[in-house]
């Protein structure tokens, strides 16, 4: 439901979101890339399992936590996309890195 204005095209890279390959633009944050790729829920909460998604886009709400290249709970809005990045949403799964 997010879309890009036509002539903002720049260089693109491919990343993986939950095992799906998507093409995103260099300079996008992971959070922007998720929203532009149609991902609406990026995690469910540890406390109640409620769905959450990016809210502030500037690193202060900690809602957009996802697993990037195996490291859980990264702030998606504070990390820029990189070629070949592996992004996993944290839905219905406790981000335990210990099991």
């Amino acid at each position, binding site marked *: *439901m*997010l879309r890009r204005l036509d002539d*903002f095209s720049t260089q693109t890279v491919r990343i993986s979101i939950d095992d799906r390959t998507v093409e995103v633009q260099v*300079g996008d944050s992971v959070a922007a890339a998720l929203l532009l790729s149609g991902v609406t829920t990026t995690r469910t909460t540890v406390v109640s399992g409620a769905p*959450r998604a*990016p809210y502030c886009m500037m690193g202060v709400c900690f809602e957009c936590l996802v697993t990037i290249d195996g490291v859980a709970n990264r702030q998606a809005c504070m990390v820029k996309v990189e070629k070949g990045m592996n992004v996993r949403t944290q839905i219905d799964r406790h981000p335990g890195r210990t099991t």
Partner: protein
Amino acid sequence: MISLQSLMNLDDRYELIVIGAGPAGMAAAIEATRNGVKTLVLDENGAIGGQIYRSITTATPKRLAVLGKDYAGGAELARTFTESGAAYLAKATVWRLTADRELGVSHDGMAKLITGERVLVATGALERPFPIAGWTLPGVMTAGAAQILLKASGAVMGPKMVLAGSGPLLWLLASQYLAADVPLLAILDTTPRKNVLRAIPHLPGFMASPYFRKGLGLVTKVRRAVRVYKNVDKLRAEGSERVERVRFSASGKEHSLELDHLLLHHGVVPEMNLLRSVGCEMAWDEEQICWHPIASAGGETSIPGIYVAGDGRAIYGAELARFGGRRAALEISKSLGAIDGAAFEHLCAQLEQESRPFIRGRFFLDRMFRPRREHLTPAHDALVCRCEEVLGSTLHDTIFRLKVLGPNQLKAFLRSGMGPCQGRQCSLSVTQTIAKLRGVSPEDVGAYRIRPPVKPITVGQIANLQTRHKRGLECLQ
């Protein structure tokens, strides 16, 4: 600008360390390096500009046209900063600051401790918490978030997008969407009617300020193109997996709109977790309904050598943030002996003269866009603490039943403010709820004490700092 690539490039000590590369931080670094002060600028984003001028160095002509003149005006400041002699490290997180001006910095999975003879905190502002029912649903974001998406990715939402709240940013964002030919479903203006009366005494100052013509034109243009509901209250977002509709009352009549995106905004407030964590004294400002660090004219806080400038000091906007950053840099340069008293006096007088019209205009904006009282504290069915999922009803009940006097005892009882956001999304609402229920001023209630790390750092990064600190083990069993 000396662009640093890694923590390894950082010296152990700088004359001035500026935290934040927004308008205040950049202006301060330009002035300080001009005076020969050895300056380091740390910023957590990938590029300079802060939030207001985000992605300014890579903006395409179309993007500049959509975002408008004020945004484009940041390019010159960014260029001057780039040409300055300041050292700059991007993607650097400052997770700790001490009264001895020691900073904990992390970057690319490593951490390091460095010291500034002077430290300038220019960490800007964040959106004021808007704790209505459903504000945690996917699809509900802040207006600031939408601007960031527009600036950094050229991304827009729509077509079923609703803006709700109050304040200049709301109208600015609407006008930017219109400039990009992206329709908005509606604007829900929550500004209370009585604000006009309170603001009128400051109207002359506003009319004489650069904000007046710009603001008037903007609002007129948006009103012509978008359905605006006035005097909105009883706002709530609803939906199961994501936001599906917004319910509200406008001038006493109930409404419901189906939508895909709801953007909330009722002003911004200083981001002050770093200053709080080091124990800077704060005062409650009832005009801006937030805390301000107590600081001298030159921005020095209650802790010697630690300065603050820009929206992190008080909400005056980007133009004044530049003046404030420069003013602080002059003070710092003088205290370091980098400029003499006469030059200092001369430049300060000049700055004051130039900044005056902007200051006058602000008083009107604060009063005109004062948030609706009911949106400052959580409704019973709204989460106040998004991280620990504490409901407004639980908050009210606990304050009442356990006679809670302040937010720190409340934190112990309910865990509110203990999550990863470190109270950024609930501190103001909690303080104001306690104040309301106790019938006292927020000044008497106080705020959460903030603990390090103010930004994430891993157990491993902290463990690796130990090589410099073997002594630490002696105090452990």
